[in-house]
């Protein structure tokens, strides 16, 4: 890389890291989320153009806030309807320093409002808090840039219409808003983690981004164990990523993964964070899912997995966050801990709630294979393959079925 290119790349990284801080300062000062976001974007474009030529300023964040603020006041002056606010601004004191984590968290809450669709909240969070460009986000989700641009603009409009003052949600709304925010962060993580195809580096960076933002949220909300629980879950899941796909990019099931490829440092950190959170007493679904992840990650070999513990954890998870998918996973754990018949029995119980869902067939196939009924298993794998909408999963199920045809269980 030439020095000029390196400098441009450094500038890009600097801008991205500082985007939320700058946005938070401008929103706090001027109150208008949509216009502030535009102004900050424009300031960043100016910076990306000027700094590589003129050098990075002494205080990059100060520079960006000043330029964005100037755009805002210009816009306010041009807009006669806002004259009142301009007069108010003249007497308002300078906002004091605020912890960076608090600001980022406030932005996350803003962008993850429950009335936004998941896709819209994801796009807006990546843009306003993650500092990704519309181009990058569009590429990550395989959507044209103009379409993604409109999606983000509409999301900003929805946030602006909610007209919530900048800061944390009021206590009555906190639990629901936190749930929505953590849900969006987890979706972003999954979008990145589960991408197993092609040269989509933009996608795999999404997991890193989700982890980064969740870390910041945890800094700002140390009293909420589920934030740390989610972070632990992400780290313990991401740790397995290097072993998740084979040389051809195909999915490798957990029991066949080369565990020497797992990221030991991520597992250690996830384990430590989980222990800290669980010590606080209120155990929620993310912590439980993280504990299940840890039970897998701790096993040196697949056969060392403590399935009894995992079964117990799924039992707890079903109490805390019941749902057919959890019940399905519990059926698998029961089969592993107590034998395939136990799992198949649980499966029959949950099946009515999941009429025709491909996962029921996939799980039944797996359990039938464990029980030694290769022919029935093959039929279930094939059926699951017909019903899934996931291409990597379809190929995995098809191969599983073929394995049984070729000389069978």
């Amino acid at each position, binding site marked *: 890389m030439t020095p000029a290119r390196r400098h441009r790349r450094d500038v890009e990284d600097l801008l991205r890291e500082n985007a939320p801080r700058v946005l938070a300062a401008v929103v706090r000062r001027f109150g208008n989320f949509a216009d502030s976001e535009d102004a900050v974007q424009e300031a960043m474009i100016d910076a990306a153009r000027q700094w590589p030529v003129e050098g990075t300023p002494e205080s990059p964040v100060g520079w960006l806030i000043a330029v964005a603020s100037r755009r805002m006041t210009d816009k306010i002056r041009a807009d006669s309807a806002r004259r009142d606010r301009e007069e108010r601004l003249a007497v308002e004191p300078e906002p004091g320093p605020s912890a960076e984590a608090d600001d980022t968290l406030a932005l996350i809450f803003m962008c993850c409002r429950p009335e936004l669709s998941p896709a819209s909240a994801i796009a807006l969070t990546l843009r306003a808090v993650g500092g990704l460009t519309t181009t990058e986000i569009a590429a990550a989700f395989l959507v044209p840039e103009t379409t993604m641009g*409109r999606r983000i603009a509409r999301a900003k409009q929805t946030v602006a219409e909610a007209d919530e003052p900048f800061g944390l949600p009021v206590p009555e709304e906190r639990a629901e808003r936190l749930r929505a925010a953590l849900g969006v962060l987890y979706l972003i993580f999954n979008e990145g983690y589960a991408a197993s195809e092609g040269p989509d580096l933009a996608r795999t960076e999404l997991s890193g981004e989700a982890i980064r933002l969740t870390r910041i949220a945890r800094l700002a909300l140390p009293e909420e164990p589920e934030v740390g629980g989610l972070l632990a879950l992400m780290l313990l899941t991401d740790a397995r990523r290097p072993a998740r796909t084979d040389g051809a990019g195909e999915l490798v099931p957990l029991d066949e993964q080369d565990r020497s490829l797992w990221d030991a440092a991520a597992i250690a950190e996830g384990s430590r964070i989980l222990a800290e959170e669980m010590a606080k007493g209120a155990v929620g679904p993310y912590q439980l899912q993280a504990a299940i992840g840890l039970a897998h990650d701790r096993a040196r070999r697949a056969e060392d997995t403590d399935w009894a513990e995992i079964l117990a954890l799924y039992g707890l998870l079903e109490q805390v966050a019941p749902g057919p998918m959890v019940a399905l996973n519990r059926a698998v754990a029961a089969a592993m801990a107590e034998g395939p018949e136990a799992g198949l029995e649980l499966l029959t119980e949950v099946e009515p709630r999941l009429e025709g869902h491909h996962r029921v067939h996939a799980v039944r196939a797996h359990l039938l294979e464990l029980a030694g009924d290769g022919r029935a298993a093959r039929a279930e794998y094939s059926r699951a393959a017909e019903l899934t909408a996931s*291409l990597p999963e379809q190929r995995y199920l098809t191969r599983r079925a073929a394995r049984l045809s070729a000389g069978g269980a």
Partner: protein
Amino acid sequence: MKFMLLQHYGRVEGNVPPISEWNPEDVQAHIQFQKDLNAELRERGELVEAQALTGPDLAKIVLATDGAPAVTDGPFAESKELLAGWRMVDVESEERAIEIAALASEGPGPDGAPLRQAIEVREVMSPIEP
């Protein structure tokens, strides 16, 4: 979730003549309808792609045997089965995809009457494991 909304030639209810035989105002109205629908979907952040294909008389069917292609030129007896065009949309649910397909299904035909075209709705397989 991404969905393909596929339009085939033959799936129009009733005896509607091909668009080449409509009067110009009706043709213009139909074209404008498609443009407007695309613009709305783009504005809503839902449109991924919209394409029209060249006519069935220009279609070719290729079948290879040991590397040697046998090419059959249109027009075909099965022209009705051929694709006229498609939209790919990125939406929150199958319900929304069906809603959009319903809009596309009733674009204006001769004398402005709704065309009632059967649109095939297919989810696009996702590159990620759920």
